[in-house]
């Protein structure tokens, strides 16, 4: 029997650009051309002013650790506990859920507001996930 795998996102027409971005090594956000609001998750209109004139842009990939849990049980398929489930506050404003790699999954190593940077992990040939690691320098 195949090993249980991590939940795999299935893009929709409205989110395809995001997943194309991660595959190309870019974290893509959207900005409203009318009111300049930057938002996430993806949608083809501005949730602030309802304008349909919006643009996709490459985010800096920089952020800070907004909050997290260290999950012990039950563990999701494809994860070895304990592992942190984090919410990252991006430099551009939106927040997104992710995991923190490259550091111990402990309260001591995971300090709120610590600087993070995006890194990409291919799940398979189609899907690459945006993860975060402690920022260098």
């Amino acid at each position, binding site marked *: 029997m195949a090993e249980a795998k*991590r*939940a*795999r*996102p*299935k*893009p*929709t027409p409205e*989110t395809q650009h995001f*997943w194309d971005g991660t595959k190309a090594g870019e974290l893509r956000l959207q900005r409203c051309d009318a009111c300049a609001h930057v938002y*996430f*998750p993806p949608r083809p209109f501005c949730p602030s002013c309802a304008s349909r004139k919006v643009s996709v842009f490459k985010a800096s990939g920089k952020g800070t650790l*907004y*909050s*997290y*849990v*260290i*999950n*012990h*049980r*039950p*563990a*999701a*398929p*494809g*994860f070895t506990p*304990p*592992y942190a*489930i*984090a*919410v990252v506050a991006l430099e551009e404003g939106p*927040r*997104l*859920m*992710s*995991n923190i790699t490259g550091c111990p999954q402990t*309260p001591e190593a995971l300090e*709120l507001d610590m600087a993070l940077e995006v890194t990409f992990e291919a*799940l398979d040939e189609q899907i690459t*996930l945006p993860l975060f690691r402690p920022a260098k320098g």
Partner: protein
Amino acid sequence: MRRNQVAVVGAAETTELGIIPTMSQIQLHADAALNAIADAGLKLSDIDGFATAVETPQQICHYLGITPTWVDGTSVGGCSFMLHVRHAAAAIEAGLCKTVLITHAESGKSMIGKQPRSIAPDSLQGQFEAPFGVYGPPSMFPIPVLRYMKTYGITHEQLAMVAVVQREWAAKNPRAMMKDPITVDDVLNSRMIAYPFRLLQCCLVTDGGGALILTSADRAKDFPQKPVYILGTGESVETPMVSQMETFNSSRAFKVAGPLAFKEAGISHADVDHLMIYDAFAHLPLFGLGDLGFMPHAETGPFIAAGHTRPGGKLPLNTNGGGLSYMHSGMYGMYALQESVRQMRGIAPAQVPGAKISVCHGVGGMFAASGTIIFTNER
């Protein structure tokens, strides 16, 4: 909505609570409904309005043999029943129906006749949360806690006291699942579930149900039970994704629903004799006390730690023992409502002496939705 125009005239839980391997989920609905009908001295044929969540109205109406002229299938998580009460009160006032039955039941532990909850991989949650290892409420609901603690200086010990105090209330309730006293050390040494929360800070998983019957206040005086009037109501939703909350320092849905209910009721916080705040996890009472305006968020942890919400305290909170100790079948809002009704009838096992106003505040999903009902036993 006008105050005190609609009343609860029937209220009951399932005959058993806890682990019920002898009933499917729809039968738990029926068991609660039949108990509530008996409580109100009614027949099923008297019911012309019906509301439920998760299960569809058609499923339960057919099973019970009810032909309604008004239905509400609002299903926004564990506070759905607060929203049903609000909607039912409006419907009765508008003349759409006369006598509404609201049912909840969940085979949350035994999982008999219950569809497992799942997240579609092409939903926003499936794309932007599930791949990062969230797996059920314990891995999601506590995600805001560390930020909340840092912002307001809330301590692990204060969050442990929530569980300790609720166990004190549970000890006074014969039907509570967990009645043995616990200490802060017990909580902080219990099994780690999702840091910062441990087992005793997470809700129980049980089977059970409950049902309410509402009618106009003018008719309510002819029923066998003491009427419990709807004084104020509020509701809102925010987001199905905990990661996308406006802030982790507060719940927007709470901040809309709670104050709306207080305004409608025309009461101040000092008027509140009894309070229920849906406690799926230990931080919920803190968010509720802050967002409903009882006190600044920074004071909520010290307030509970000082014992003000325990038996004999000045603000009795979650007097059945809550989702942490009484029961939690998955959508606890119905049990919070049942306890408020018992308190207003004056028949609660841990009765607050002379209580006249009860505030019952619910959450749905992971801060996704909220509903607040303010009850009174005086018209």
